[in-house]
C-alpha cells in the first residue's frame, strides 16, 4: 500500500507511541498490574470464604458489584451510540475521537459483565446458564444481549481499524516480531483497492446501524432486571429509557475524559482540538438535561402518588442522615454543574469541560448506587434483624478492592490497546483536511446557511 507524504507524517507522529514506553508509562503499567493482582487476591478470598466477606446480606443482595456492572455497561455507550450516530450522520469532526470511543465500548463491555460473575454465588456453575437457560428470565435476556453487543462492538472496532493494520503492515514499525505478524494477519490482505474500500465503508455503515438499537436494547434489558421486580423504586415503566439516557450521559463523559487524557499524554493537541471538546460538551449538556428530566419525572411521580413503600425509599433518599447528600450530588450537582460549565461561555474551556465530565461520570456512579441500595434496604416487610449489617449495607474491603481493580483493568486494557494500535485512525485522519481549516469550513458553512436563511426571509417578506 503506497502512502502519501501526509499519511507518512501522521504515522510518524504515532510511531513513538507504538514503539516505546516512557518511564512514566512503565510505572503506570506496573501500578495497574499490582492493582489487578490485589483484585485477584480479593477474589480469592471471596471464593474461598464465600460471599460472607462482602457487605451483601439477605436484604441487600446486590451491592457494589451490580453498581459497577451497570456503570461499565453505561460507559460502553461512548462507542456504540456516540460513534455510531456520529458516523451515520457523517459528522465531519468525528474522525479523531471515534477510535477512542470504540475502545471504551469494547473494554467496558468486557469489564462490566465480569462484575456480574463476581456477584454470582456459585462461579463454578455459570455454565448452568447455557445448560438450563430459561428465556423467561431477564438475566437470560441480558446474557444474549450483552454477548451480541460485545461481538458487535468488537467487529465495529475491528472494521474501523483494518486500514491502520494494513498501514502498519506495509510500513513496519520497530516492534516485536509477533506484533508485526499480528498486524499482517489482522489486516486480512487489505490493500486499499477501490472495491475493498467500498466494501469496508458499507460494512461499517451497516454495523453502525445495527449497533445503535443493540446498545439501546442492552441497557433496556439491564434496566428490566430491576424494573421487572415488584420493588419500590425499581418497578417503574420509565426505567429502560431512564437507564439508556443515563448511560449515554456517562458514556459521553468518559469519552471526553479519555480525549483529555490522551491529548495530554500523547500530545495530540493538533488532532483533538477545542472543537471536539465544545461539541461533545454540547452533547453532554443535552444528555444531562434529559437525564435530569427523567430523574425529576421518576421521583416526582412516586412522591406525588405517595404509596407507602415508595415513600420508604424516598425517605431514605431525602434523609440527611441517610442518603440525602449523595442524592443531592447525583441528582442535582451531577446535572446542573456540567450544564452551567458548558453553557456559560466564560467557564467553557477544555479543562473545565473535562472537569464537568468527571463530575457527571462520578455522579452517575453514585446514582447507580442510589438506585440499587436504598431500594433493597427498604423491603416491603419490616426488618427485625438484630445484626446491623443485615439492615444497612456497607461495602467491605473485598468489594472496594475489586471495584478499584476493575477501574484499573479499564485503564490497563485501554493503555495496552493504545500501545498496539494508534489511538487515532491514522488513515482516516490523513485523508481529511487540516483541522484548523476544518474549523474554518464549519464556520463558513454556518455562515452560508445563515445567509441563505436571511435571503429566504427576505424573499418571503419582500
Amino acid at each position, binding site marked *: 500500500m503506497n502512502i502519501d507524504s501526509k499519511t507518512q507524517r501522521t504515522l510518524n507522529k504515532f510511531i513513538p507511541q507504538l514503539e516505546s514506553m516512557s518511564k512514566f508509562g512503565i510505572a503506570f503499567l506496573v501500578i495497574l498490574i499490582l492493582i489487578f493482582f490485589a483484585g485477584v487476591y480479593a477474589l480469592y478470598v471471596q471464593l474461598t470464604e464465600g*460471599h460472607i466477606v462482602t457487605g451483601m446480606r439477605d436484604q441487600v443482595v446486590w451491592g457494589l458489584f451490580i453498581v459497577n456492572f451497570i456503570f461499565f455497561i453505561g460507559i460502553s455507550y461512548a462507542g456504540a451510540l456516540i460513534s455510531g450516530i456520529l458516523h451515520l450522520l457523517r459528522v465531519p469532526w468525528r474522525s479523531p475521537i471515534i477510535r477512542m470511543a470504540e475502545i471504551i465500548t469494547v473494554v467496558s463491555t468486557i469489564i462490566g459483565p465480569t462484575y456480574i460473575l463476581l456477584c454470582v454465588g456459585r462461579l463454578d456453575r455459570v455454565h448452568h446458564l447455557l445448560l438450563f437457560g430459561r428465556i423467561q428470565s431477564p438475566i437470560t435476556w441480558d446474557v444474549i444481549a450483552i454477548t451480541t453487543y460485545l461481538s458487535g462492538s468488537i467487529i465495529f472496532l475491528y472494521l474501523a481499524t483494518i486500514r491502520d493494520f494494513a498501514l502498519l503492515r506495509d510500513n513496519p514499525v520497530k516492534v516485536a516480531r509477533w506484533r508485526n505478524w499480528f498486524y499482517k494477519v489482522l489486516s486480512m490482505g487489505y490493500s486499499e483497492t477501490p472495491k475493498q474500500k467500498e466494501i469496508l465503508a458499507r460494512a461499517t455503515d451497516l454495523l453502525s446501524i445495527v449497533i445503535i438499537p443493540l446498545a439501546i436494547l442492552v441497557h433496556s434489558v439491564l434496566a428490566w432486571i430491576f424494573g421487572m421486580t415488584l420493588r419500590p423504586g425499581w418497578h417503574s415503566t420509565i426505567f429502560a429509557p431512564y437507564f439508556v439516557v443515563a448511560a449515554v450521559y456517562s458514556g459521553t463523559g468518559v469519552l471526553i475524559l479519555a480525549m483529555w487524557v490522551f491529548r495530554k499524554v500523547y500530545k495530540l493537541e493538533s488532532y483533538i482540538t477545542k472543537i471536539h471538546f465544545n461539541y461533545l460538551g454540547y452533547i453532554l449538556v443535552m444528555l444531562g438535561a434529559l437525564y435530569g428530566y427523567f430523574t425529576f419525572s421518576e421521583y416526582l411521580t412516586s412522591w406525588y402518588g405517595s404509596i407507602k413503600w415508595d415513600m420508604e425509599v424516598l425517605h431514605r433518599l431525602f434523609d440527611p442522615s441517610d442518603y440525602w447528600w449523595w442524592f443531592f450530588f447525583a441528582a442535582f450537582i451531577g446535572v446542573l454543574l456540567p450544564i452551567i460549565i458548558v453553557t456559560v461561555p466564560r467557564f467553557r474551556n477544555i479543562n473545565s469541560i473535562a472537569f464537568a465530565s468527571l463530575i457527571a461520570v462520578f455522579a452517575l456512579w453514585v446514582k447507580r448506587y442510589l438506585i440499587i441500595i436504598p431500594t433493597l434496604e427498604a423491603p416491603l416487610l419490616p426488618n427485625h434483624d438484630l445484626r446491623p449489617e443485615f439492615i444497612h449495607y456497607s461495602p467491605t474491603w473485598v468489594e472496594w478492592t475489586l471495584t478499584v481493580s476493575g477501574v484499573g483493568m479499564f485503564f490497563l486494557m485501554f493503555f495496552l490497546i493504545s500501545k498496539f494500535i494508534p489511538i487515532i485512525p491514522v488513515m482516516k485522519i490523513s485523508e481529511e483536511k487540516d483541522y484548523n481549516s476544518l474549523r474554518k469550513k464549519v464556520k463558513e458553512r454556518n455562515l452560508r446557511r445563515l445567509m441563505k436563511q436571511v435571503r429566504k426571509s427576505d424573499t418571503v417578506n419582500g
Partner: protein
Amino acid sequence: MVHPFCNDLIATFKIENMQIHKQALEMGKVEDSQVNKEAGNSRRNFIRYSVAAGAGSLLGASLLTGKINAEESDGEKVKVLTTDGRLVEVEKGHLCCEPVSHEVARHGIGNKKMVMVIDLSKCRNARECVKGCQKMHYLPEDIEWIKLFLMRDNEDTGPYWFPKPCLHCNNPPCVKVCPVGATFKRSDGIVLIDNDRCIGCKFCMAACPYSSRVFNWKEPKIEPHELDKNYSPENSTPGKVGTVGKCDFCPDMVRQGKLPSCVTSCPNGVFYYGDENLDTVTNGSETLRFKKLLNDRTAYRFMEELGTEPSVYYLPPTNRLFDYKVGFNDISEEEIALYKKEARIED
C-alpha cells in the same frame, strides 16, 4: 397418627409387620449381594429408596439410594405393596427417610395442592416454629426460614404477631426470574429450590416481595453424621454455600404422611396445613374444612394486591388469645426495642 389429608398417600402402602427374613427382600433392581456389600462397607448403610412422585406410586424397583441405619434397626420388617402389585419388604426404619431424586422433586405429589392457614389470633411469638424449622433443616441459629414480625398496620390499630414462611405463591415472582430454573413451582403448589442447580445470582431474592429467601453466605456447618438424609430439593438439607434457601413447605414430610415441623412444634396450634383438593387442613389437634374455615373467619392472603396469589392464608388477628406484649417475654431488650421501633409503638 395419620392425618386425613395424607390418607391417599398412605393408602398406597399396605403395611404389615413381618418376621425378619432377609432373603425375602425382593427389592427389584437392588441385588442382595449389593446390599450386603454396602452393609459391610459402612456403618451407615444406605439403601436409597425412592418413592415416585406424581401418581403416588411406590416405585419399589427404583430403590436408588435408601438408607438403613444399622444400629437403629430393630430388625422389624414391613411389607410394602407397590401400585403395580409387587410386594416389597424393607426394614421399617427405611420407610420414612429417603428423599426423592432431583427429577422426581420437580413434580408435585399426586393431585395435591398444599395450603397453609395461619391463625394470627393465637400467635404470641413463642418462636417454637422457628426453632422447630431450624432443627428439622439443620439451620444455624442465624438463618430463619420462617420469620416472626410484629405488625401494626397504622398508629391507631393494635399490634399483632405475624409468622411468615415462604408463601408458595401461585404466581411466584421468584420462579419467573430464575435464569436456570433452579427454583420452580410444582403441581402441588410447592415452590422449591434445587441447590445443586442454583447459581446464586440472588435475582429471586430481589424478586420475592415477601423477604422469604435467605442466602447461604458461608458453608453451612453441619457434621455429616448429624444428617440422616441425603440432599434432595424436597428436604433442602444440607444447604449449599453460595445458593439460596427458604421454607420448602416440607414435601418430604407430606410423603411420609407427617406434618411440617412448624405445625407440630407450635404450642398454640397457629398453623394449619393441608391439601386444598381434599378441602382439609389440620394443626395436629384439630382438623377443619379448608374452604369453610376461610369463609367463616374471613381469611386473607398477605399483600394480595401484588398479584402473587399466595398459598398461605391468614386468619385475622381478632379476639386475640394473648396480649401482644406476651411476645416480649422471652426476647432480649434490644430485640424488643427493634420490634417497637418498626411497629411504631411508644411506651
